[in-house]
């Protein structure tokens, strides 16, 4: 997203457009990445309830994974998962693979 100049933005740090946090990508803040083991996951959706960044993808009431562009890697999903289906994996490991 192109950053705007001081004449282009609302005064006082106000947000005039509800829900525009979606445009602000925070995935790069992550140190640990949540990874789901689909064999253990029952789609109870506790992770979806607790996720503070709306980063759990749900389709047809099934847990389908994570929105990594917004997930900050806080690990709450891992902590609340009753089936230990979510593992937090060091982000650096993925970056090495992706390279």
């Amino acid at each position, binding site marked *: 997203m192109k*950053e*705007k*100049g*001081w004449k282009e*933005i*609302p*005064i*006082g*740090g*106000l*947000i*005039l457009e*509800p829900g525009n946090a979606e445009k602000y990508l925070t995935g790069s803040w992550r140190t640990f990445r949540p990874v789901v083991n689909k064999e253990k996951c029952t789609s109870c959706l506790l992770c979806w309830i607790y996720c503070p960044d709306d980063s759990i993808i749900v389709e047809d009431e099934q847990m389908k994974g994570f929105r990594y562009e917004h997930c900050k890697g806080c690990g709450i999903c891992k902590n609340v998962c009753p089936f230990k289906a979510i593992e937090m994996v060091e982000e650096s490991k993925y970056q090495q693979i992706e390279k």
Partner: protein
Amino acid sequence: MATIEAMTGDEVAAEAMRQINPDVVAAYPITPQTEVVQNFSQSVANGRVKTEMIRVESEHSAMSACVGASAAGVRAMTATCANGLALMWEIVYIAASYRLPIVMAVANRALSGPINIHCDHSDSMGARDSGWIQLYSENCQEVYDNLIQAVKIAEDKSVLLPVMVCFDGFIISHATERVEILDDEKVKNFIGEFKPQYPLLDLNNPVTYGPLDLFDYYFEHKRQQVEAMENAISVIEKVGKEYEKISGRKYELVEKYNLEASDMVIIAAGSTAGTIKATIDELKEKGINVGLLKIRTFRPFPHVQIRDALKDKLCVAVMDRSASFGARGGPIFLEIRSTLYEEKKKPVVVNYIYGLGGRETTVEHIKKVVDNLSKIKKTGKVDRLIDYLGVRE
């Protein structure tokens, strides 16, 4: 028809507030501002205003409640001084940063410690970088006039900044003077109805106040505040002219008194400007001419107007009723010297720190300043760049 009353600075501040009739006042009493809150509470109790009076447990809460009310979309006011202003500190900056047009009466008092309840400008001068507009008043009439104008200045769309109306604790706040009070209706029409720009309670246009603002946008928001302060210069002038039409009293960014007649100038803010005027009149009879440049607006600092006013002057004494410890002179002195830096031909500018903690500053003191200015004018020599008027060695 205006009525003529005998009122103290605090009483007349409360009277202005009654006429402004703010939607919310959240305030905590502190000497010498107490009577502002006391008298205004009386108006609330007597049903003379529609104000929601919030009796808070501290000044921090007072300013917080004003921020909440103003963001919600109503006109909010408060009053404080000294340690009360210090306790508000965190929220004082937030009010300016959120661009909330709150108006606050400040009965200037020395900051502790050691504890002192009397006048100096250390409280509001400490807040000079907070993003609030600051108007200084010379007497009770100016407290009243400045408060009414402050509402209009703060709420101007090109400004949207909070305003402090400063007046000297006890010297103005507790001194009874003749004041002209405008008709309620006149004041009401002058300030008009408050039309908030981004009210939190407008459910059709939801807004967020106070989100996290990091390295990517905080700087841009500060730049906007700088611009709003710049805009305030012409708005203060415009509102002053409009106010003159309804009151007959002239208000500019700075006031000039006998300035054209002399190449020696004293610069001051607050009640001491009155003492200086009296001294000027007295000396005039003896054939000594000196001018006064009164700083009514300290934030934004009207540097263009001051530079023009000091053109062709030879020597200037800047009076500061606060010390900036470790700095090369008081806050007004620093601004004046900086204003003149680019000028090829500039006057000698000396500084007097005076009146700290309510130390009496009399005509005799001002005469000493004039004596020294005459000496500088004659010899071109400055003994002390920064001097302390009335302190014992």
